[in-house]
């Protein structure tokens, strides 16, 4: 039995060695592909703020300063109580934590976060706007959000912000003789008054209105995500700092990241440093209780094409060749039905409830939906396929998602 004893000794030593190596805490190994996928999500990989050619005032600090005041000014609403900041609350990451946004009334969708939207070609869940400035103008005239109208806002600019406005946009036309309430809005009285105005007056007021949007966008451009624990981990991986990686992530969080970029296929839509491709996807999310089925991009696509403030409109400062996203967008088709824009996942844990109408209360519910991929109620196209993840794996993904929390950087 002499040989056997040697073999036993060697085998035991080998097992102890390998066990020590595997069980000793150390940073997980990433393949070249995985490392590339992690680098692609890293905030350090975010390109510089892209210019908005449709807004020539986008990088004017005076416009940003005026825009910041307008963003928080509740006078710009029908009841004097609603500003952009009512739903986009800075302390909550510029969203409100509610399933449906509450302005002067209640909307049918959830408030979207603002951080990093300067990078998005499309705004709103259905992409019915194609710039931050055009987006900012939507809620102002919505009867359930700010509930106001164009001449009302022009009067307010004239009365409270004239000097600042003129310093940026040039002389303010005389609006004092125009009706207090007029605009192309749902309110019949204001609509009738608007139609009674001369084309020139309407054009002048609309120009002021567009400039308000451009000032607000100049401010919103500066609202950006700050680095999260994930970014510390990713940077350490890029720089080969094993100790920093180990300190930044628990084994569960690292396992969650591996699933996120691999088996769970989250990066199909939540890719890039903002964790969104800013495109449109149908993930078969059920309609919210009490609300009709939301067709999403099917509504948004024709609206952005017809939008009077889109990239190709007279109020846009862009040349035609700078509007590629709009010119080459998919405008119709069966696949648009039920598509919505994936929001950024940065700070996602602080942004319950989830989905376009706050249908899911917790990330556990969201992950359960993606894991089982239930058929869309009316049977139309749905991009999901069941993932067959275990409960433990779902917990790991959620652990990873919690590492995406970081500051939202905004002007003071």
């Amino acid at each position, binding site marked *: 039995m002499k040989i056997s004893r040697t073999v036993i000794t060697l085998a035991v030593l080998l097992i102890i060695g*390998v*066990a020590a190596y595997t069980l000793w805490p150390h940073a997980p190994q990433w393949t070249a592909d995985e490392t590339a996928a992690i680098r692609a999500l890293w905030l350090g990989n975010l390109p510089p703020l892209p210019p908005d050619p449709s807004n020539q005032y986008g990088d004017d600090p005076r416009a940003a300063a005026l825009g910041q005041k307008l963003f928080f000014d509740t006078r710009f609403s029908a009841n004097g109580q609603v500003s952009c900041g009512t739903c986009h609350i800075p302390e909550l990451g510029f969203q409100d934590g509610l399933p449906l946004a509450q302005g002067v009334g209640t909307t049918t969708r959830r408030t979207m976060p603002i951080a990093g939207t300067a990078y998005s070609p499309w705004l709103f869940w259905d992409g019915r706007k194609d710039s931050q400035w055009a987006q900012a103008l939507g809620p102002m005239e919505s009867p359930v959000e700010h509930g106001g109208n164009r001449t009302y806002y022009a009067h307010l600019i004239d009365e409270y912000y004239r000097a600042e406005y003129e310093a940026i946009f040039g002389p303010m036309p005389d609006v004092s003789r125009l009706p207090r309430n007029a605009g192309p809005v749902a309110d019949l009285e204001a609509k009738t008054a608007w139609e009674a105005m001369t084309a020139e007056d309407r054009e002048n007021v609309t120009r002021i209105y567009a400039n308000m949007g451009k000032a607000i966008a100049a401010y919103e451009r500066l609202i950006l995500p700050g680095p999260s624990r994930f970014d510390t981990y990713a940077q350490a991986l890029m720089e080969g700092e094993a100790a920093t990686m180990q300190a930044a992530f628990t084994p569960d969080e690292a396992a969650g990241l591996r699933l996120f970029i691999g088996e769970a296929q989250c990066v199909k839509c939540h*890719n890039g440093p903002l964790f969104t491709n800013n*495109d449109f996807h149908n993930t078969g999310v059920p309609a919210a209780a009490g609300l009709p089925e939301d067709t999403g991009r099917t509504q948004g696509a024709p609206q952005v094409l017809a939008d009077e403030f889109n990239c190709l409109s007279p109020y846009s400062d862009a040349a035609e060749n700078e509007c590629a996203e709009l*010119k*080459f967008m998919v405008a119709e088709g069966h696949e648009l039905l039920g598509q919505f824009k994936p929001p950024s996942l940065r700070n996602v844990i602080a942004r319950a409830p989830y989905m376009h109408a706050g249908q899911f209360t917790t990330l556990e519910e969201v992950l359960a939906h993606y894991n089982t991929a239930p058929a869309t109620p009316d049977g139309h196209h749905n991009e999901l396929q069941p993932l067959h993840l275990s409960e433990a794996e779902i917990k790991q993904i959620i652990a990873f998602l919690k590492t995406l929390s970081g500051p939202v950087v905004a002007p003071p």
Partner: protein
Amino acid sequence: MKKSTLTVVATAAITAVAIIIVFVLLLPIIGPRFIMPLVMGNIAAPADLDTATTRPTDSGLYRVSFTSALDPIAINQIHSWTLHVETADGQPVDNAEISVNGGMPQHGHGLPTKPQVTQNLGNGDYLVEGLKFQMTGWWEVRFDISAEGQSDSITFNLVLQ
């Protein structure tokens, strides 16, 4: 049983057990690197995919190549390509009608935009605007080319990281 036979059997058994234990212990390291890519066959592009940017059309009528204004091609950025079309014997095709299609064969969806040939640049060159890819992975971009009563197609493969 002879003593030597017993020794051989014991050695084999111990070795087998040791190998199994080592394999199990190493699974967390081996798994993601070697086993998962096998299991997740639908995620990786086929290994033998032809990603050449100059290729003959399906029926061999033309030879087509593309160059991207965005190089390397990155996801989520709209950009344009220049497509060059020539006959099999190298003569530029100047009067072609070209349509663009594409998508991700493994995901069953099309392109996120509607790219179009917007300019005939002459000498067999055509400007294709509005190309965009919003996911990493295997993409197909197909051009249907018609000229002088004949038509042919070419599908380029891209694998984006």
